[in-house]
């Protein structure tokens, strides 16, 4: 192999960043074919976890799937507190200060936090 010329260096410097970007996009597209696109990975959430993460879309989807807006579900550690807890979705939304999520939950039949006799918002 011959030595790299000045022209090779200049062309290479220009082409390298876009080439890396193109390779990255090709990898993303290849992974997308197997449902593993790294930017579009969706973490499964319980209803109160979705509420705590202000994920209105996921809250609405889970409600339409039949999740009970008044039931307690597990919330993994790190979502609201350092420890794993069990909360109703509306308690989680209140703890995360997400009024629009509370609105969705109440529209779906959840009892507002104020009217829950044993409410324990963390």
């Amino acid at each position, binding site marked *: 192999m011959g030595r790299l010329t*000045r*022209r090779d260096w*200049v062309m290479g*410097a220009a082409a390298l960043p*876009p080439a890396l970007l193109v390779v990255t996009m090709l990898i*993303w597209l290849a992974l997308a074919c197997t449902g593993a696109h790294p930017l579009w990975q969706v973490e499964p959430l319980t209803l109160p976890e979705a509420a705590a993460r202000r994920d*209105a879309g996921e809250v609405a*989807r889970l409600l339409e799937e039949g999740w009970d807006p008044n039931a307690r579900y597990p919330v993994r550690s790190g979502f609201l507190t350092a420890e794993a807890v069990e909360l109703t979705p509306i308690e989680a939304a209140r703890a995360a200060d997400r009024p629009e999520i509370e609105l969705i939950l*109440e529209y779906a039949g959840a009892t507002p936090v104020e009217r829950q006799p044993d409410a324990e918002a963390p």
Partner: protein
Amino acid sequence: MPSPRAPVPHPPGSAACGHETRGYARWAYVLAAIFTLAFAYDLLRLPVQVYDALGEILDASRSPSAGHSFVQSLGTAAYFRPLRIAQIKALFDLSGGQYWLVYRGFHVLLLALCLWLFTRALRVRSTTDLAAAAVALTVLTGMSTFRGTVLEAFPINHFLEVAVAALAALNLAQSRGGWWVDAAAAVVFAAAALTLESGLLVWVVAVSARAAGFRGISRGGLAVMTGLLAAYVAVRFLWLQTGAPGLSERSAGYFLSVLEPDELVRRFGDWPYPFYAYNVLASVSSVLFSEPRSGVFVGVRGWMQGEFPLLVVLALVSSVPTTLLVAWMLARSRRVRGAGNGVDTEPVAPLGLVAAAVIAGSAALSYAYTKDDIMSTAGVFYALAAFESLRRLLAYASTARTGVAVLTVIALLVCGSAWAIRSAGLHHVLRMQAFRHRGDWAVLPARLAAEGRPYETAEGAAIVRALRGEALAMPAPNPGSYARWAEDVWGD
């Protein structure tokens, strides 16, 4: 009668035309296809948006025909965009209830057209061209003005439509000409102008392209387009008396903050010209230096608050050298032309000259308020100018002294990397947008109920249900699961 067949200007040093050069062009199209596929994947995970789109779709459902929508929208107070409404209606009728598929599919089609026409306009004929084209695609998709072409759709992204129309006009101007080229240019101009005010830029492209040496659109063709422009002005301002957007229309960025309409009227109601001048200059700067963003100097504001986000650093590191390079090329172009050495009729920077005209024209159209979206066509032409400048720089640096070559290599690596990171960031911003759109649909019924605003008709309720169902069925990654650095580097 066919127009004069002038050769397409191409700088010296490029490979001659021939079948061996078509391979480079093919590779450029392959690159454009990869960019298209990568963004198309993101776009196809985006629900139709609620704001600025649902109302239009419901209006379309109530309209008896696209023609009726066209005529009805002629009487609006500040805007003259009849074809915009007619298109929304036409796609609505085409959808057969598959709203997301048709509107988002059309968005992807426009994006593909944009990148194809952009690549075609580059006229790639050599390895130098191919390297410059790869960078140009990165610049195009990394610019903040490009975000406006993919992030939103109302439910059609009309800014992207105008960019496609402007690129189509440039490609026609670069062609060998003929009556059909003139006819197509006139049709493209009429369609773009009736879709959005920015569509008038198609005329700017055609005129400046001819001045820059692209002779595909003949003088007669330009005369027809100018006649159509005169007709547009007469119909809009004299016959229909459609005004222009006033200060009270919307909020607008001004130096370090966003001013609400009341504040705009209070400060500039009596003498709006300083505000208009600011908008024009801010619009130019937003393309050349990626600052301000929609009128607000985000970087300066951050710096005054003691922080300088990586996002802003990347924008400056990529934009400033690129703009300096384009300016250098344009200055050199003027010098060569002024030398009277026989190349006066073939400027060395035709794309740069067209880009300068489009940026100036876009900025003038943004006088009432500045927005990145409005400058999206200008951003596309800026990337074309960047291609042309880079091609020249690569040719120059390949034979320059060692010191100059080393500096060029370092500058190319730093600046190119910054553009590549910005381009990759658009994928991140799109997933964030998907999350937002989905959330907007999720809360809509509860919000309407809370505000006591029922659906007007059963058909409207059914459309909302269908669109909402489509949106909820499209999972979007939660921002809580993103890597922490993503927002610092790419913003939201």
